[in-house]
C-alpha cells in the first residue's frame, strides 16, 4: 500500500504544491488537506507547508493554529503521527504548543532568501532517519520571521534531550538562538524546520537534492512501524 502524506492548505499557504511534489518524488502519495476540513483522509503523516497563512497577520501561525484541521492534527500528533512543519508550518507547530519556543522577526529585519548550509544534529526523528548525525546539507532558506527563540532552560533542555534537529552552519541567517534551524518533540514524530527541504529535491530547480531525505525518512519510518 502506498504511504499517504497529507499536505495542508491554509488560506495563504504557498509551498503546498512544492511539498506535494517532494512527497511524490520520495515515493509517497501526496494528499491535499483543506484547513476547514477536520478529516485527515486516512493519511499516515502530515506536512504543514511554508507560506503566509492568514497573511501572517496578528502573529505568524497564530490564526491557523485554530483551523479545524489543526484540531485533528494536534490530536494525532500526540498519538505519534509524523508531522513536519516547514517555515510557516514550524510557526504553526509552535503556536499549537506541539513544539516549544517561537519564531520572531529576523535580526536583519529583512526577508532573506539564500542557499543555506545546515548540520543534521539528530538523525533519529521520523523525518531525519535517512541522514546521519553530523551530516551537512544545503537547502534553500526563505523567511522574514525565522529567528528561533526560547528561554535558556528550554534551550538547555532541547540540547540535553537531543531535540535540536538541525543547526545553521557558516552563517546564522536570522539570529536564531544557538543557531537552531529545526527542533523535534520528545517523541521524535513532530519536527519543525525553518529552511525548505522541499525546494531541494530536483537538480534542475534546487541548489542540491539534499532536502529529499526528510521525505524519504518518513516513508521508512512508516514502513518499519
Amino acid at each position, binding site marked *: 500500500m502506498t504511504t499517504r502524506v497529507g499536505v495542508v492548505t491554509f*488560506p*495563504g499557504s*504557498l*509551498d503546498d*504544491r*512544492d511539498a506535494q*511534489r517532494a512527497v511524490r518524488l520520495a515515493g509517497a502519495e501526496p494528499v491535499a488537506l483543506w484547513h476547514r476540513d477536520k478529516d485527515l483522509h486516512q493519511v499516515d503523516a502530515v506536512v504543514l507547508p*511554508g*507560506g*503566509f497563512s*492568514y*497573511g*501572517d*497577520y496578528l502573529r505568524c501561525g497564530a490564526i491557523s493554529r485554530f483551523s479545524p484541521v489543526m484540531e485533528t492534527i494536534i490530536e494525532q500528533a500526540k498519538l505519534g503521527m509524523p508531522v513536519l512543519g516547514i517555515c510557516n508550518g514550524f510557526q504553526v507547530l509552535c503556536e499549537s504548543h506541539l513544539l516549544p519556543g517561537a519564531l520572531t522577526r529576523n535580526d536583519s529585519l*529583512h*526577508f*532573506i*532568501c*539564500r542557499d543555506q548550509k545546515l548540520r543534521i544534529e539528530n538523525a533519529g526523528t521520523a523525518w531525519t532517519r535517512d541522514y546521519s548525525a553530523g551530516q551537512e546539507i544545503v537547502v*534553500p532558506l*526563505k523567511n*522574514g520571521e525565522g529567528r528561533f527563540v526560547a528561554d535558556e532552560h528550554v534551550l538547555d533542555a532541547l540540547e540535553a534531550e537531543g531535540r535540536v534537529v538541525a543547526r545553521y552552519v557558516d552563517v546564522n541567517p536570522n539570529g536564531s538562538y544557538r543557531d537552531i534551524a529545526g527542533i523535534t518533540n520528545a517523541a521524535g514524530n513532530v519536527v519543525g524546520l525553518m529552511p*525548505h527541504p*522541499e*525546494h531541494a*529535491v*530536483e537538480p*534542475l*530547480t*534546487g541548489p542540491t537534492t539534499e532536502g529529499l531525505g526528510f521525505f524519504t525518512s518518513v516513508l521508512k519510518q512508516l514502513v518499519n512501524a
Partner: protein
Amino acid sequence: MTLDTVKNAEQTPDAAQPWAELGLKEDEYSRIREILGRRPTGAELAMYSVMWSEHCSYKSSKVHLKQFGEKAPENDAMLVGIGENAGVVDVGQGYAVTFKVESHNHPSYIEPYQGAATGIGGIVRDILAMGARPVAVMDPLRFGAADHPDTRRVLPGIVAGIGGYGNCLGLPNIGGEVVFDSCYQGNPLVNALCVGVMKHEDIHLAKASGPGNKVILYGARTGGDGIGGVSVLASETFDATGPAKRPAVQVGDPFQEKLLIECTLEIFKEDLVAGIQDLGGAGLSCATSELASAGTGGMRIELDTVPLRDNTLSPEEILMSESQERMCAIVEPGKVDRFLEICEKWDVIATVIGEVTDGERLEIFWHGEQVVDVPPRTVAHEGPTYQRPFARPSWQDALQADAPTAERLVRPTTGEGLKADLLKVASHPNQASKSWITDQYDRYVLGNTVLSVGEDSGMIRIDEETNLGVSVATDGNGRYTKLDPYTGAQLALAEAYRNVAAGGAKPLAVSDCLNFGSPEDPDVMWQFAEATRGLADACQVLGTPVTGGNVSLYNQTGEVAIHPTPVVAVLGVIDDVTRRTPIGFAEEGQLLYLLGDTADELGGSAWSQVVHQHLGGLPPKVDLERERLLGEILIAGSRDGMIDAAHDLSDGGLGQALVESCLKGGKGARVVVPEGQDPFVFLFSESAGRAVVSVPRSEELRFNDMCGARGLPATRIGVVDGDVLDVQGQFGVSLAELKDAHTGVIEALLA
C-alpha cells in the same frame, strides 16, 4: 451635499464643476458636455476624469503606439494582441503564456513600500484576468545616484514592498534590473512584470456580453485609498510646492490577493465567467466602462450595493477609488450561485452589483436614483487623442558630437591601468552584485525556477512531464536612448532578445514599459516618437510583436526629465529546460569564444560613466540581422550541447561579462587579446550583437563549423582555468579580489 443625479444635471446646466481639480483640460470638459448633451453629473465627471487621464487613455502616446500594430510582424504564436489586459502567446503543447510589464513609478516615489507593493498586485491581476495562473514576477528598477541620501529612503522601501507583496503571493521573483543614475533622482522607475501560464482553452477576455448576465464585484471592500491615482498622480509632473500626494497612493493586502488568485482560478476551472476584468487604475470606472464598451454596450449598476470599508464614501469616490485586490466578473445567472460558493470557500467577499442590459448605455444608480447615463465607449475607448508637437532637441547634436574618443577621455594603456578600470566598473553600483536586493525576494516558491538571480534571463519550467519552459529578460539603457532614442530603443530590444537566446530559449514576443518625461515638452515627445518608431521597426525585423505594455509619462520633476527609458521585455520558449545555458564558467579546460564583432564603441558605455562621468557621442550600432543570427547560434549551441555557458555582452563590455561569469561559476579564465585588437577596446567596448560562450573541447570543431557555415564571427579568446582572471600580457586579478570589488557594494551604501 445633495446627490447630483442625471435629472439634477439636466436642471442645473450652469452649476460650476471641479473639472480642473480632477485633471481635465477645458476642451476635454467641453467635449464631455457635447457627448452627453448636458453637463455631466459629479459621478460622470469623476469617471471621465480618470478614464481620460494620460495613464488610462494614452492620449499623448496612442498616435505613436499604433505603429506596434501596423508594423507587427507575422507571428503564428500570437493568440491575443494589444488591447486586452495582457497579450497571450502560444508556446506549444497546448500551453499559452501571457506576460506584461507595467509601471508604478509615481506612487513608489511618494510611498515606496506601498507604491511598489501595489505595482506587483496590479500586474498580477492583469495576468490573472486573462485566465492564467501567475507563475513569476520580475522588476526593472531605476534609482537616483546610489550615494544620494534620498536613494536610501526610496530603495529599501521599494525593495521591501516588492518582496513583501510578491513573497506573500507565492510568486518567484526571477530577475529584473537595478540601475542608478542621477537623472532618476526625483523620479525612480518601478516597473513590474508578471508571467502567467494557461491552456489555450482557458483564455478569458474583458467584455460584458449577454443581456441578463450578472456583474459581480469580488475581492476586497472598497475604501477611500487611491482616489484619483491615475489622474492626479500618474498624469502630472511633480511640483515641489504642491500639496503632498500620499492619499492618492493605494495600500496593498497581499493575503487578500493570494485568496483572489486561488478563488479566481477555481472559478475559471469550472468555466463560470463570460468576461472578467481586474480593478486597477481608475477602479470601478474603468472596469464597468471597459467591460461594457468591449461587450454589447449596455450595463446597469447599483452602486450602493458595493461593499465598503468606509460608509461615508460618495458615489464619485466609489467610482474613482483604486482600492486593491478587487475583480469584476460577468456571470450567467445560472452560474451565480456556484460562483458565490467558491468565493465563500476562499473567504472572498462577492456581490452582484448589476447586470448586462440590452441597451447601449452604462447606467449607474445610487439608492434608486440615476447618477450615470453614458455611452461606455466614450468613457473607455474614445477618449481624447493628442497630436503633441515634437521636435529634435536643440542640444541633441552637441550631445552626439561629444564622442568619447581617446583624445576626449583618457584611456588606460597599461595592464595596471586596465585592471584598475575593470575593478572600477565591476564595483560601481550599476555593475556590482545586486544580491542585497535579490536575497529579499523568494526565487524558489512553486519549485519551477530554472534560471534566476544573476543570470541573463529568468527561466521557469511550465510542464514537469515534458520540461517545456519559458524565459523572460528585461532591458533598457536610458543612456543609450538619451544619445539616440531610435537606436537606444532598438538596443533595449536587442539586448533582451540576446539575453533570452543566451539562456537557450527562442524569443517569441515583446512587452514594453515606456518611461519618459512630460509629453508637453516637445523634446521629450520627440524622444518618445523616435523610441517607439525604433522599437516598432526592430520588432518587425526580429519577428517579435509587441503584445502589450504600458506608457509612463510625466517622469520629471520641474524642468528636468529622466533619460528616456524604454524597458523592453522579451519572452522566449524552450522545449527542454534541462538544456538551459547558465552564465557561469564552471568547467575548467573549456574554451572561451567571443561571438560577434568588436568595434571602438564607447558612447553611453559603463566605462565612460564610471571612470569619466561622461555621456556623449552615439550609442553602439544596431545590426538586427546579426542579433538574429547570434540568437540562432546560441539556441542551437545550447540545444545540441555545444555550449555549456553563455553570457551576453552589454554594459561594461567583455571585461564585465568575464567578471560575472567567473564569479558565478567559481572558476578563473585565461584570456588572450586577439592579434591587432586594442586591449582597452577589447575589454570595455559595448558593441552590440556579442556574447561570450564556454565550449567543451570535444565540441570545438562542431561549434566552429556551425559558426563558420552560418557566417557568425567566432574568436577563440581563452580557456576556463584556475582562480584568476588573467588577461595575458596585461594583468591578472584573483577571483577573491574580484569578489571583494563586486559584492557588498549596495549594502555598504545603504548601511
